């Protein structure tokens, strides 16, 4: 099954070669055709249980899919969130909410791939968010600012984290936040402004200005005040999946660098015969395999329902760093051609860099390991 799945994803991706992604990148457009085909073939619904129209597969298979997309030179970030954002709904939503949304998410008619947490005045300190949802009868009225919220313009639904009790009034700062499903199709224009951020990569990401946006109470997921816990509940899966994208990126770079270094002849021999070129590629590969092994350990624990926070976070950090090392190695191996768009390396170089920062910066991973795994003094 795993080999077959890997082959099938590879085959699909092979129809979207570098020039496709290059064109999409240059025009800062959405890879509609690729995403439509991926959706149609069922890949983005792999984690949704069969009773709701998905394939009910585990995280292992989802990792294969995302890894192969990025290894092919594609960019899974355009649609990866459609795979796992629904996890919050699946784990903590009511039966009614699941029945309402999951079948549409599974067949792709409902796009839930926007997830609004980050705020300009809170940054990595999520509990400091100030977007506030006031309960008024059978609805909440929400105002605040969000930043770097991706794929909003390519989503029908958005998961939103907002405070429902002011920070000053809660006994623990992780309390008093709630999670909502925002139906973006119903939002009146003057209640939510979406301001696109021009970025280094082709990643539809936005600033959101919420001004008394009304959300029906039935769109709150789980209990009021418990939202932060729900968000954390999906973090391990996200770390593991995005680590897989980085592993895919890393392998893309070593695949390409190895091939190019074998073909490019300078001083009468392939540049890859020089240890100054060969060893960095080999070292980058070792790093990627090491990160993949940690990712696999996280997957095993996740699948067995064991605690995997440490492994998931370490896999994310190792994979993001390994991919970034490999990106630089590939740039070196390609020399000047690494800068030429048609080779694809510079685009992937930019794209691979994201995972050092998002969805959580590697420093935050280290503080988690230091404070929660090693038990060292807290810095915040």
């Amino acid at each position, binding site marked *: *099954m795993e*080999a*077959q*799945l890997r*082959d*099938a994803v590879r*085959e*699909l991706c092979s129809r979207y070669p570098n020039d496709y992604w290059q064109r999409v990148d240059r025009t800062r457009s959405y890879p509609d055709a690729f995403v439509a085909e991926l959706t*149609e*073939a*069922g*890949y983005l*619904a*792999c984690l949704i249980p069969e009773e709701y129209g998905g*394939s009910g*597969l585990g995280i292992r298979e989802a990792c294969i*899919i995302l890894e192969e997309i990025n290894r092919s030179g594609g960019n899974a970030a355009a649609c990866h969130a459609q795979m796992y954002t629904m996890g919050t709904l699946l784990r903590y939503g009511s039966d009614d909410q699941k029945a309402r949304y999951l079948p549409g998410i599974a067949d792709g008619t409902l796009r839930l791939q926007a997830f609004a947490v980050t705020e300009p005045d809170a940054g990595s300190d999520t509990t400091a968010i100030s977007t506030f949802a006031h309960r008024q009868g059978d609805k909440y009225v929400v105002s605040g600012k969000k930043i770097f919220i991706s794929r909003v313009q390519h989503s029908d639904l958005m998961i939103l984290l907002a405070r429902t009790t002011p920070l000053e009034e809660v006994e623990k700062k992780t309390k008093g936040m709630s999670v909502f499903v925002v139906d973006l199709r119903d939002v009146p224009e003057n209640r939510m402004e979406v301001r696109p951020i021009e970025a280094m990569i082709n990643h539809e990401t936005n600033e959101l200005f919420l001004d008394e946006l009304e959300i029906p109470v039935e769109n709150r997921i789980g209990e009021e005040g418990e939202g932060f816990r729900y968000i954390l509940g999906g973090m391990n899966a996200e770390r593991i999946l995005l680590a897989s994208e980085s592993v895919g990126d890393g392998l893309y770079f070593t695949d390409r660098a190895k091939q190019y270094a074998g073909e490019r002849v300078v001083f009468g021999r392939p540049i890859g015969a020089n240890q100054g070129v060969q060893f960095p590629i080999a070292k980058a590969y070792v790093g990627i395999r090491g990160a993949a092994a940690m990712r696999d350990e996280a997957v095993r624990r996740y699948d067995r329902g064991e605690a995997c926070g440490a492994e998931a976070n370490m896999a994310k950090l190792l994979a993001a760093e390994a991919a970034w090392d490999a990106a630089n190695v590939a740039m070196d191996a390609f020399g000047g051609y690494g800068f030429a768009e048609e080779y694809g390396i510079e685009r992937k170089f930019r794209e691979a860099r994201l995972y050092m920062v998002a969805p959580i910066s590697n420093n935050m991973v280290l503080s988690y390991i230091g404070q929660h795994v090693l038990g060292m003094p807290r810095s915040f």
Partner: protein
Amino acid sequence: MEILVCVKRVPDTETRIRIGDGGRSIDPSGVKYVLSPYDEFAVEAALRTKEGLGEGEVTVTTFGDDASQETLRSALAMGANRAVLLEGAATMDGLTTAKVLATEIEEMDPPLVLLGMKAADADQQQVGPMLATLLGRPCATAVAEFEVADGKVVCRREVEGGTEVLELDLPAVITVTKGAYEPRYASLKGIMAAKRKPLEKKPVDVPESALVVEALEPPPEKAAGRIVGEGPDAVAELVRLLREEARVL
């Protein structure tokens, strides 16, 4: 209409082949196996025929060991309805394979039997015609496109410099080449559905073979190439070398 497609598990064309077993067979270790690409055309042709007719079933079968189940699952993932594994030790003898298939097919009696024009490993192009002979059915080989109507199948073949059109009475045996049948790839939905489709395993008696493989030899190592120059300037030198060194002009 019932369509039976006979398929084979072969090494992936991108796999590096090593010779093992005293030079008589390939070393299977580290080899990635796939559904033979010509058989993919045949499966595609069967699925399109079924879809065109709006009825019927596509069964895939293979003669091989337990590992061939994987190959059958690939065909099921493409959309075939059921699979039968004729379990036994396959050989390089096309006649043995044809006999095993013929025994099974006589029992099932499907009006249309499809095969790839050849297996991508041994390239022998034997099994289709031999099977047709054993069954006493008409056979068209290397068919680029066909259509079934009124108990007949009309086949188009690409021949040197033109096209040949054949009409065969059903039941018939057809071997398929790429032609119109660019294979669909398996989707995740297809792979998931394939897990639930019936795959029957039938041990078979393998008839005695009168053919042994004496030796397999890899192609000779290619000598390193040489760049004789660039652009139009290189032409004169290339012609000189082809004439004087390679002596091919």
